[in-house]
C-alpha cells in the first residue's frame, strides 16, 4: 500500500519536477526572444519591440523599456501558435503525424532530471547538490535520453508522406549517428582525467565532475580539444546552424516540419530551444566549472543561502553566455553542405577524438607510473 510518507515525498518530487520544467521552458521561450533580438542587433535592425500587455505599457519609463526589449514577445508568440488555424494535410499518416512533436519534446524535457544547477548548504557546512535525481550515471543518462529526441524528427519526416520532410528525416538520423560517436568519445578523456588513480571520484555523475573543478582548473582549460569536439558535436546534435541539415530551409523548404503548422510546429520549436538550453547547461557543468567561481579561485560567497543563490546565479550566467554563443554562431556561419557535414563527422572529428582519447590514456598511465616510482 502507499503510505503517507511515500505520498509526501512523491508529491514534493512532482512539485519540484513541475517547477524545473517551467523554469527550463521559460528559458527556452526567452532564448527564442534572445535569438530574434541578437540576430536583429547583428544585422543592424531593432527586433521585436511592439508587443505589450494592456496597462503595463502605460507605466512611465518601465513600461516603455519592457516594450523596447520585447519582454512580452514570447507570450504573444505562444498565443499565436495556439490560436492559429490547425491545418492537417490530407496525405499524412495521422497517428504518427500527431505523435512526432511529442516524441521530440519529451526527451528534451526528461534530460533535466539529472541536471544539477547549484548546491544547498546545510547548517553544518556540508552541501548537497540541487538536482532532481542524483544518478551515479548522470552523463550517460543525458546522452541516452537526448539521443531519443531524433525519433521525433525522423517520425515527422516519415509520417508527413512528402519528399522534403522525408529527406530531412533521413539526414537527421544520419547526422545523429555520426556525431553521437564523436560526442561520447570526447567525454571519455574527461572522465578518465577526473577519476585518474589517486582521485576520490569514481563515477559518471555530473555533480562530482562540477565539484572537481572547484578551486582548480576548468576542464576546458585542461582538455581544450575535448571541449572543442564536444561543442561541435553539441551543435550537430541540437540541429543548430551550421548543422541544421534536417531543417535547411533553403533546399528543403522547412525540412522535417514542412507539413506542420500552428501549435504542433510550436512544440518542435520549443523542443529545439530546450535542447539548446540543456546542452549549454551540460557544457557549463562539464567544461566551465558549473556553479563554481573562476578557475583556481575559491568560491567567494559564504556557505549559506546567499552562497546557494549566488552560485546558482553564476551557473545561470555561464549558461546564458553559452546560449548567446549558440545564437552568435548561427548568425555568423553559413550552413554546411550535407556531404561536408558527413565528412567532418566521420573523417575529421571521429579520428581526432580517438587520438585525443589515446593521448590521455597514455598521459594518465604515465602520470600514474611516475607517481608510483619516484
Amino acid at each position: 500500500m502507499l503510505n503517507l510518507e511515500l505520498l509526501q515525498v512523491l508529491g514534493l518530487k512532482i512539485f519540484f519536477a513541475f517547477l524545473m520544467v517551467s523554469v527550463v521552458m521559460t528559458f527556452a521561450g526567452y532564448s527564442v526572444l534572445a535569438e530574434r533580438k541578437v540576430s536583429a542587433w547583428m544585422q543592424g535592425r531593432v527586433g521585436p519591440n511592439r508587443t505589450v500587455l494592456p496597462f503595463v505599457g502605460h507605466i512611465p519609463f518601465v513600461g516603455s523599456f519592457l516594450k523596447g526589449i520585447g519582454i512580452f514577445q514570447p507570450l504573444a508568440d505562444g498565443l499565436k501558435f495556439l490560436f492559429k488555424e490547425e491545418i492537417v494535410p490530407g496525405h499524412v499518416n495521422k497517428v504518427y503525424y500527431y505523435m512526432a512533436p511529442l516524441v521530440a519534446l519529451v526527451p528534451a524535457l526528461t534530460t533535466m532530471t539529472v541536471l544539477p544547477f547549484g548546491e544547498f548548504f546545510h547548517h553544518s557546512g556540508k552541501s548537497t547538490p540541487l538536482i532532481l535525481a542524483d544518478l551515479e550515471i548522470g552523463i550517460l543518462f543525458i546522452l541516452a535520453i537526448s539521443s531519443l529526441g531524433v525519433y521525433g524528427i525522423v517520425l515527422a519526416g516519415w509520417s508527413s508522406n512528402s519528399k522534403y520532410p522525408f529527406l530531412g528525416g533521413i539526414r537527421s538520423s544520419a547526422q545523429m549517428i555520426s556525431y553521437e560517436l564523436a560526442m561520447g568519445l570526447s567525454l571519455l578523456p574527461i572522465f578518465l582525467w577526473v577519476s585518474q588513480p589517486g582521485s576520490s571520484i569514481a563515477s559518471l555523475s555530473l555533480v562530482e565532475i562540477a565539484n572537481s573543478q572547484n578551486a582548480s582548473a576548468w576542464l576546458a582549460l585542461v582538455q581544450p580539444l575535448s571541449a572543442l569536439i564536444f561543442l561541435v558535436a553539441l551543435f550537430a546534435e541540437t540541429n543548430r546552424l551550421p548543422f541544421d541539415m534536417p531543417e535547411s530551409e533553403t533546399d528543403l523548404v522547412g525540412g522535417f516540419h514542412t507539413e506542420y503548422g500552428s501549435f504542433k510546429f510550436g512544440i518542435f520549436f520549443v523542443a529545439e530551444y530546450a535542447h539548446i538550453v540543456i546542452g549549454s547547461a551540460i557544457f557549463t557543468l562539464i567544461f566551465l566549472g558549473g556553479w563554481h567561481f573562476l578557475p583556481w579561485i575559491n568560491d567567494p560567497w559564504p556557505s549559506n543561502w546567499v552562497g546557494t543563490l549566488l552560485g546558482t546565479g553564476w551557473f545561470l550566467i555561464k549558461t546564458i553566455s553559452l546560449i548567446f554563443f549558440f545564437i552568435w554562431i548561427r548568425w555568423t556561419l553559413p550552413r554546411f553542405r550535407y556531404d561536408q557535414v558527413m565528412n567532418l563527422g566521420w573523417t575529421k572529428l571521429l579520428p581526432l577524438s580517438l587520438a585525443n582519447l589515446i593521448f590521455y590514456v597514455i598521459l594518465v598511465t604515465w602520470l600514474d607510473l611516475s607517481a608510483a616510482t619516484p
Partner: protein
Amino acid sequence: MNLLDLLFFFFSSLAAGGGLLMVVSKHPVPAALFMILSLVGVASLFVLLEAFFLAILQILVYAGAVMVLFLFIIMLLDVGPDGGKASKIRILSGFAGAVAVGLIIVLLLHFSQQSGFGLSSNAWPEINADSFVNGSNLTFSTSVKNFGYGLFTKYMLPLQVAGFLLLAAMVGVIILSKKFRIKKP
C-alpha cells in the same frame, strides 16, 4: 500488490506488447518504432531491478543508436508494407509462429507445474552476493566502477574475445559490401 508490482506489470506489458506489435505490424517503420517501445520497456525493467547502468546502456546502444540506424536504412531503401521477401513465405512464417507458441506453452506449463504464477521463493534459488561472485573478492554492486573493475580484471579475456569478434564482423561487412575491382592485365 504494491507500487513496485504495478510498475513491473506495466513495464513488462510494455515490453511484451511492443514485441508482439512489432511482429504483427505490416509496415517496417511502425515495426521499428514498436521495437523501440519494447526496448524501453526492458530498460525500465532493469531500472526496477536497480540496475541503472544496464538500463541506460540498453537505451543508449539499442534504442539510441542501433534503432536509429535501422530506421535510416528502412527509410533510405523506402521499404513498403510488402517490401520484404519473408512475408511471402507463408509456410516458413507459419512454422516459426507455431514454434514460438509451443515454446510459450511449455514455459507456462513449467511455471504452473512448478510454483504457479506467484513464483514462490523455491522456484529458483535466491541469488545473492555470494552466489553471484563465488570465490572472488568482487563485491556485488550495480555501480559503474564495479562493472569496469570486473570487466578489466576477472573478465578481461571474454571482453577481448568479444571485441575481436566484433572487429571480425566489421571487417567482414566491409569486404562483403565493398566491390573490389580486379585489375585486368
